[in-house]
Structure formats: C-alpha cells, structure tokens
C-alpha cells in the first residue's frame, strides 16, 4: 500500500446542535423542541503539520467546530479521532488524563477579551503550566514563560512579563495569547481568526509567528477565518462552510483561485482586490437575500433560495459530495452527472 501522510485529526459526520431556550408556554403551544443547528454533519481530516483552514461567513459554524475539537463543547453526534484514538465522547476527566489539555490548544479572535486584564503577562502565560500541574517550581515556571515570550518576540521578555494587557498594543496582546497557547508545546492548535482584529501592517508578522511554530515545533493547525485572501497565504487545504455544512473542500490554491461551488464563487468574487484595474473589470456572483436562520435551514441544498443556479432538485434533496478532481470536492447538484 502507498504510504499516506499521517492524519492527526479526523472529523466524521460531526453535529453540534444548541437547544433554543423557549418559555414553557411556547413549548406547550408549538410542541417540538427547536435547535440551532450550528454544525450539521461535517467531515474533514487534518494531516500532521498541516494548516487546515475552515472558512465561511458569520454564523456558519466555524468557531463551534473549533470549540468541539478542543473539548470546550461536546459534540451532539459524530466522531472525532485524534492521533488514532476516538475522543468524541470523553469526559472532562478522561480528556485531562489522556493529556489532551496539553496537546490541544485554542487561540481566540479577540486579544482584548481573551486576556484577564488583572493579570500580568507572566501569570497569563504561566497559567497553563500551573493548571496542568507541569511544575510547581517558581523558577522553572518563570524560565519557561520568559523563553516562550522570547520566541513570540515580546522582547525584552523580562520587561513584557511584568506588564498588564492594557499596557500592550493589539498585536502584542495577540502575541501573549499565542505564547499562552504554545507554552505547553502543543501538537494541535485551533487558531480562531487570530489576526482579524489586527491592523494590516502587523498581521503578516503574526502569521509568520504561527508558521514559525509549525516549522520548529511541528504544530498542526486548524485556522479559522472569514478572510480567504489571508487563508491563501497560510493554509494548505481548506473547507468552506455555509449554515453548518461544508460546501467545498480542496487545496487552498484550488479553492480560492478556482472556486466551484456557487457559494464559494460568490464569496471569492466579493473579496476586494488590492488591484484597481482588476477590480474595475471584475464580475461578481451575487447571492439573493440574506443568510437564513440555522434553526430552520432550507430543505435540500441550504443555498438554494439564494443560489443563482438553483434547479428543481436543489430544493428537494441534499446534494452529495462530488470529487471534481483528486482532493477537490463540491457538494452541489450542478456537478452530479445524471
């Protein structure tokens, strides 16, 4: 058998539904319970040392997927295999016992909200070491924190260690968040929009930093973003989400420069291009109306009410996943040969 690249994370038909809170009377009158179908049956796999991008617009289920993968949310249904072991139904205790809290980390979007304003950088970054009982030796903790601060280029580390978050710029705060995620030498990191709150001139240096940890520490990433232009610069493969489903998967270069699903085409054609002449000629593919509620997503293909190419079947049946070239798949009736 040919040797395949090793898979680190495998997600198989994953669901995450959130119950909608309703009053007793509403439940009585309307009967059935309602759910926000945030993630509604998605599958993908991430290879070791890969940067896998999960992209899509607001509310498509990206963060929810990320939270399930790091154990912050329990899946409603489906399987997650991590490094060969099924971790989908582990209790918190088991999660910790297997060392997953050390191996899997998450970096959040907002460097302003994700750091405790009353803690010094030293304490923020040391927290994972203490919570996971890596060591109690104060000297060793400080040494490890200073070392990781150097690595994320918060230098001089001895100065930054004693600052509070409000004494840092947005870019520096995101470096602290990265240091905290990396201090335990994780294998797998979910980075949820790590640069979308940052200014253009400092984004590239934060992305360089994520690359550094892949090169030197073999970190594997799930990189969550709504920004396909940036995705192209960091990612290897990508999945595009719409209303809790994956509509297209493939190498980032294929999907972003040659999108096939009507939703991906609309998304890509809406991205502003830093090239005025190209921008003036550009044709956009427009979707009708607005994104429907994930409580009652449209029947059949979820895009059909907005899709410029919708056919009869699209409103009746969910499209199958079609492989249009090796590694590039689209879930759309347009590509089903009949």
């Amino acid at each position: 058998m040919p040797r395949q690249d090793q898979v680190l994370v495998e997600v198989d038909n994953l669901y995450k539904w959130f119950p909608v809170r309703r009053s007793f009377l509403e439940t009585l009158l309307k009967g059935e319970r309602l759910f926000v179908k945030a993630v509604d049956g998605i599958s993908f796999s991430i290879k070791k040392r890969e940067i896998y991008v999960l992209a899509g617009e607001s509310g498509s289920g990206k963060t929810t997927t990320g939270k399930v993968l790091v154990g912050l949310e329990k899946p409603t249904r489906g399987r997650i295999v991590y490094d060969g072991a099924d971790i989908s139904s582990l209790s918190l205790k088991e999660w910790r016992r297997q060392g997953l809290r050390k191996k899997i980390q998450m970096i959040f979007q907002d460097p302003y909200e994700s750091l405790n304003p009353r803690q010094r950088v030293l304490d923020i970054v040391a927290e994972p070491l203490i919570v996971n009982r890596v060591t109690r030796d104060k000297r060793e903790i400080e040494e490890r924190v200073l070392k990781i601060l150097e690595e994320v280029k918060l230098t001089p580390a001895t100065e930054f260690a004693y600052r509070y978050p409000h004494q840092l710029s947005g870019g520096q705060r995101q470096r602290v968040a990265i240091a905290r995620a990396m201090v335990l030498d994780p294998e797998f990191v979910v980075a949820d929009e790590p640069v979308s709150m940052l200014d253009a001139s400092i984004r590239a240096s934060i992305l360089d930093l994520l690359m550094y940890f892949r090169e030197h520490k073999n970190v594997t990433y799930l990189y969550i973003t709504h920004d396909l232009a940036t995705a192209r610069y960091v990612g290897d493969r990508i999945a595009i989400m719409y209303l809790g489903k994956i509509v297209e998967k493939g190498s980032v270069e294929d999907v972003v420069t040659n999108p096939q699903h009507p939703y991906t085409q609309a998304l890509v054609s809406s991205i502003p291009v830093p090239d005025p002449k190209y921008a003036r000629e550009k044709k956009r593919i427009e979707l009708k109306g607005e994104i429907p509620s994930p409580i009652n997503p449209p029947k059949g293909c979820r895009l059909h009410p907005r899709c410029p190419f919708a056919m009869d079947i699209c409103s009746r049946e969910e499209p199958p996943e079609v492989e249009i070239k090796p590694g590039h798949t689209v879930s759309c009736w347009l590509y089903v040969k009949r």
Partner: protein
Amino acid sequence: MKTATILEVENLKVYYFTQRGVVRAVDDVSLEIDKGELVALVGESGSGKSTLAYAIMRMVPPPGRIVSGRIVLSGIDITSLSEEEVRKLRWSKVSMIFQGAMNSLNPVMRVGDQIAEVLLYHGAVYDVEEGRKIARELFKLVGLDPERVMSYPHELSGGQKQRVVIAMALALNPDLVIADEPTTGLDVTTQAKIMDTIRDIQRETGISVLLITHDLPLVAEVSDRVYVMYAGKIVETGDVDKIFYTPQHPYTKGLIGAVPSHIGPKKRLIALPGEPPDLRSPPPGCRFHPRCSYAMPICKRKEPPRTGTGPRDFVECWLYAGEEVKKVA
C-alpha cells in the same frame, strides 16, 4: 475648467488635551475633495481618521479641540463658525455615517421614525407622517424594502441596519457624506453589496464621499483618490492607480506589500516591522522612521517636507525632497 471643490482642509491640527499628555491625533493635515468624487482616507487603528472626520463635522469631543488650520466646506469656512451656525450645515451640507453606528440605533424606536426625526429636527418636513414618507423613499434608494421603516433595529440584520444608517446620512441631501468604516464587521458578501450601494448612489446623485477605512483592498475597489494617513499625518496622496501601482512613501509600499490578494501569483507577504507609535509621544522627525527600512539620519531629526508628485498629489518623505531642501535642513 476645474470642477467645484466641496471640501478643503488646510494644515489642520486637532489635539486631545488629556491628563496624561497631548495626543496629536491630526497634525498638519491637508486634504481636498471635489464634487462627485469618492475619496478614501486609509490608515491603521489610531492614526487619526475619525478625529479628522469629527473635525469636518465640527464635532470633536472634549478634551479634543481644533488647534489650528482651516476647513472650508462648499465655500464656507466652518472653522470659525458658531455652534449654532454649524448646526445648520451639519446633515444638510455634510453628514456622517459614524463608525459602528448600526449598533447605536435607538433600540426602542422604529427605524423609519428615527429618520423622520432627523428630518423633523431640521425642519425638512412638517410632521412625522411626512418624514416617514421620505424615509420610505430613502429606503428604496439604499436598497431596503420600504416596509422596513416599521421595523425595530433588532429585527434587522447587520447589513440592513447599515443601510438604515446610510439612508439617515442621505436624508437631508448633503454635498458630502463621510462614511467612517461603513462595512467593518459585516460579511464580505454584505460588504460588497453595501459598497455597491454607496458607489451607485454617489454616481447617480453626484454627491461626494469621504470613505474612511483601514481596509486597503476595499479602497482599490471603490475610490477615485486616496489619502494615506499614518500617526496623525497624511504621508501620501494620489489617484487610486498611482497609490496601488506606483506608491512612493515607504509606508504605503509596506502596507501594499503586507496585504494578501486572492488573485494573481502568490507573492510573499512582507511584514512591516514594529507598530504605530503612541501619539502622545510620536518619534521625532518623520513619525515612520523607526519602522522604515530606508531611514536616513535626517529622518530622525526633522519632519519631512511635502513634495508634490502631481497636480493634486504629494508625498511627505525625505527620499523625495529636493537637494536644496535637504541642504537647508
């Protein structure tokens, strides 16, 4: 013949006098906008974009104040007008789509009535009923279902709320609309539709627009001319093609090199070193020098002069200063 100038800002300084020091948010800025132009003001967070916009609206919040310079709007020098005189011009000559405005609509008032109120306040209509009628027309103009005038903000999506805010800015038919980050926080597909709407209205009505944004690609898509702001100063201006294809200032070049594109060959992204300065104590000389790979000794000592690069274009950088200027300095 030169087309009419709608806005002229000359050597404007706007400072915030805080207890922890003077923030030189807008420091010797000059800018002009012609009738029917869509001009972009692009710069990073904290560079002074909103402050400049507040000054043009004569709404600089305390402890900020216009320190010197001139703002001429449709031929009227508004810098020295009384608050009462300014109030007559605000919304009718110049209006503003405030940063984040879609999240500060009054939650307990129908959106149509919020527009009617603006109209009523300025005496543009006699009663709410007439105001609502105009609100419906405005909704059509910005691509909203006119029936939506009866909605409350929470019943609308982010994109729809932003359209309401745009309708409000257009209510009194101003010569100039300042749009401060009008699409930030919206999805790209919504953003594209909103920008189309602004562009279409601008072309149809001949209104002038000052688009404030940190999003360089967005600027490439919609603007005629561009002002690049860095740390309280305009470092470069030119028409949109010039800024993107032949940028002069190292900061503009750096920004363009740091911005990813989803088309064309994949180039390497080059990160600009460092971060923008604190405007309470900006670096001496050129404010960009600590991050600039072309910095020369003079850049650390003296502020760069303004060098013309076209009839209306300039760059403020020692690399382009004439030899005579350098010798004197």
